């Protein structure tokens, strides 16, 4: 079991996602929620960085936060798994620890 890293800030606004990707150990999971879901969008200035990090991490994004911002599932980078709140809970229980990148 590994660590679940959560990021709730937009990569355009803060460097939380970049710090997370820099300091998380390979094999960890990364869950993007709240404004963090912007990091899961394809064709942004950060998409390439996420795609490259997929070799090391499993990425998840919280669906309700995507919908709230008018961003459809087809705008999400391939390979990022969309979860709901129950999925969020499952992820926290499946991992040993949760590291929140605020």
């Amino acid at each position, binding site marked *: 079991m590994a660590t679940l890293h959560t990021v709730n800030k*937009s990569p355009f*606004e803060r460097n939380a996602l970049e710090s997370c990707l820099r300091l998380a150990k390979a094999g960890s999971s990364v869950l993007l929620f709240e404004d963090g879901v912007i990091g899961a969008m394809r064709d942004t200035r950060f998409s390439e960085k996420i795609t490259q990090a997929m070799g090391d991490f499993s990425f998840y994004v919280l669906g309700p936060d995507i919908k709230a911002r*008018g961003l459809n599932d087809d705008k999400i980078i391939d390979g990022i798994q969309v979860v709901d709140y129950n999925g969020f809970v499952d992820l926290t229980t499946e991992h040993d620890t949760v590291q929140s990148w605020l």
Partner: protein
Amino acid sequence: MENGEGVVKKFCYINRKAPYGTIYALESLEVVLIAAAFDQDISLVFADDGVYQLTKGQDTDGIGMKNFSKTYTALGDYDIKKVYVEKESLEERGLSAEDLQALKYEDEDDDWAEKDSLFVIGREEMAKIIDEQDVILSF
């Protein structure tokens, strides 16, 4: 510019944050609607993550927050007819004008014809518009 009722100043509201994650977007909208009652010359600017405030199809049922995106379409009724979106901010987010709500107003000087009030403009034009303002409020 003076008229009988007082001075009309150019007010600009700069919106740079995504909606729902922070309270900035909603607060800005509230202040804009209040200020609209004072018949000032209002411009709204959306840049950086602020462009996400205007996306169409927002559905907040899943996060238990009020969906205030429909309020933007009512801005025309408050005589707010200059909404500027920075083109470069859209592009670096993989978005285009297609992803945004259509904002309109009815032109009283043109038989109430419905006209666009949202303009996607480039960085240089945006800088010029911001520079022309008397008052700038940042959100």
